[in-house]
Structures are given as C-alpha cells and as structure tokens.
C-alpha cells in the first residue's frame, strides 16, 4: 500500500536502532498509524525537525505490514508554536489519543478536531487551555461512541432542567436525583444549569470549568482503567 501526501500530526516518537525513529502518526484517512523514519536521527537530517509533535505535515508512507516506512515528509502550512501550558495540553491530548485510539481506524472528524484544537492552543497566549481540552475530550468520546448527552436525561430523554440535581452514570448519562441536600455536601452530583453550560461550551463561570473537569475524569475513567494519564503530573 502506498499512501501519498496524507495530512498528519506526529503523536509520539521513539528512537529506533541507531539513526531511525518510530513515529506514531494521526491521519484523517488511516487513523493512528505507525511508521519507521529511517536515518532521520543522523546529524543533518532535513526531516527530523518536522517529525515532532504538534506540527502539521504531509507524509508519504509505503509498506505492506502495519508498521509503514516513511518515504517523505514535508510541512503542511506555516508552523505553529505551542508554549507553556499549551505545550502540556498538547502532550495531554496526544497521550489521550495514544491511549484511546486503536491503530488504523480512520476517523477524519477526530483529525479535524485535533487540528482545530492544536491551532486554538497555539493561539492561546497565556489563557487557560481547559475549555479547549474539555471540548476535545467530549468530541473525542462522541466520535468513539462514548458520547453522553448534556441536555437530556438518561432514561427518559427529558430535557435537563437547570434547577435539578443529577447523578452521573458513565454508561447511561445523567439521572435525576431528588436529593434535597446541598450539592456542596454531595460532591458527586451535578446541577442541571452547569450541565447545560457545558453543553453550550459556555465556560464563563468558573465553577462550570471545575464541573467540566470532574465530568471528563468520570467519563474517561472507565476507558483509561487503572493506569492514569502521566501528562496530568505536568499540571500539578
């Protein structure tokens, strides 16, 4: 199989043999795909600088096995620079994809979301990356078939009401609970208004971001299992 000039982002690289590199790529038409970049770690390789995460590239791949050989790579558009927190966020997103995506399972929507998120992260300029991360996580879960409605109740399909309290079940969604207790005392519950704000991606109120983070963790937990994401350590 020959793949010519496929848009791609490098998710991860690992040294291979003396001068080569194993690259984990995200592409629209082939999903996550692994390739060997031969000889790129030699002194003056023109290709090495492009084989870094967060850089939009066009790649050409060849080979019959699952692991392809990288035959060409060139820049796709001007280079974006992630810095500071955006850089941590980029690695977080990459780790998430490496953990959650199977190999060669094409999904152009994930690629588009990824590209959009990287561009938004590079334009962040010191702001908080959290809204971008939450939106990426939710859309990713949606594309993978684990999406959850923030506007409808789990079993009945009734609209989420802003005043109501909800319990979250990662497999079903939001189930109304008629607990009269204060949500501060019952930290596992969610207020409808916060969920609706999440659905609208309206993070202007600080507590919505905290709710969104808690929600994301709970949604991702069954998929990640007992091994936590290492990139979370960076944000500490």
């Amino acid at each position, binding site marked *: 199989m020959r793949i010519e000039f496929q848009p791609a982002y490098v998710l991860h690289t690992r040294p291979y043999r*003396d001068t080569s590199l194993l690259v984990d790529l995200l592409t629209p038409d082939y999903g996550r795909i692994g390739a060997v970049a031969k000889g790129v770690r030699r002194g003056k390789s023109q290709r090495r600088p492009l084989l870094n995460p967060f850089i939009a590239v066009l790649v050409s791949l060849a080979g019959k096995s699952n692991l392809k050989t990288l035959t060409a790579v060139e820049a796709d558009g*001007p280079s974006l620079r992630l810095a500071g927190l955006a*850089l*941590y966020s980029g690695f977080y997103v*990459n780790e998430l994809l490496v953990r959650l995506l199977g190999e060669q399972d094409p999904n152009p929507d994930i690629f588009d979301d990824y590209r959009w998120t990287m561009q938004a992260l590079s334009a962040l300029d010191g702001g908080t990356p959290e809204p971008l991360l939450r939106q990426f996580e939710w859309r990713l879960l949606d594309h993978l078939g684990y999406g959850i409605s923030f506007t409808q109740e789990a079993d009945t399909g009734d609209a989420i009401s802003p005043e109501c309290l909800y319990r979250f079940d990662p497999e079903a969604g939001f189930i109304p609970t008629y607990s009269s207790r204060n949500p501060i005392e019952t930290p596992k519950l969610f207020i409808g208004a916060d969920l609706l704000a999440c659905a609208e991606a309206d993070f202007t109120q600080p507590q919505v971001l905290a709710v969104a983070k808690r929600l994301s963790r709970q949604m991702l937990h069954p998929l990640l299992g007992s091994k936590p994401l*290492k990139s979370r350590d*960076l944000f500490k």
Partner: protein
Amino acid sequence: MFSPLIDDLISALRCLPGVGPKSAQRMVLHLLEHNREGAARLARSLDKAIEGVGRCQRCRTLTEQTVCGICENPRRDGSVLCVVETPADVVAIEQAGGYQGKYFVLLGRLSPIDGIGPEEIGMDHLVNQLKTGEVNEVILATNPTMEGETTAFYISERAKELGVAVSRIAHGVPLGGELEFVDGGTLAHAFSSRKAL
C-alpha cells in the same frame, strides 16, 4: 555454527548499538584469533566499569566517584547550572568549550506517553539543589524537540518559584548553513528570537 562459548560471546556483543550478527561475529573472531590480550583487557575494564561507575551525587552524570570531576572542580562557577538531558550532552558542551559553570543531568526528558514525568527526571533532586541558594542562574540546554521544550518550561517554572534566574540556549540557523535549506520551524524561531545588533 560455533561452539557455545563463542556463540554466547557473539550474542553478548550484540547489545552494543549498531552491532548486528555479522559485525559481532567479526569482532569475536578478531579478538579470539588475533588479539587475546586486548580481549582480556576489555573484559577486565568492562567488569571494573560496571562494578565501579555510578551516578554523581550532585549532577547525576556517570562517574565512579561520589561527586564527579566537574562538580568537584573549585575553579568552575557553581552559581551557574546547565541542565542537559544526557551525559553525552555534557561531553558535547565541554568539547565546544567556553562554559565554566556546572551541570545537572536529567537522564531523560519529560515524555508522558513513555511514562516519564517530573519524578523520573530527578526534579526533586534539582529543586533541592536550587533551594540551597548556591545557584543564581539555570541554563536550560535540553534538546530543541517538543519534549525538550516541555522539560525546559517545566524546570523554568520551578526555578522561577525559587527565585532563580532562568535562560534557554538559543536555537536558530546553523553556522555555515544556508537559509534556503533550513526548515520552516527553525527559521521562524530564528526570526522570533532575533538579536539587536
């Protein structure tokens, strides 16, 4: 094809980088046929090095002393600390000359997907050194890869919290190179961090 001892030696040599079955076989035959004395010496030095060489207590580079030669040298400036990824980077900077401060070797770089976080690169150790107040400036000489940049940013945040000045080595167009052949990322970086003359 060979007797067990020889086969064993051939497969042992293959742990070296760049040594495949063919070159391992050539090395073994050479040692056994022509240079047994050299082979004995190699065996002894290997044994001694494995036994003796550990990490420098201060900078974590490879050494058989508790504190390495550079850290111990009183003529080197202890107020400047250069942070690098590997002992090979120390050698490269030493060979380039001109740097008179001391080093800290991370023995890696932050790479969450590989399971390498702040703890694995010895951040506690580095932070403790910065807390002693001996260091006035940290020079970040991690590789200009995304992982290296992340590592540099992480360390810079910690150092700033402790009130230590931080600088990053410059990246740009290689000396004696031609602009036309420099990749876009490097060129963009060279422009954004240009220097007034």
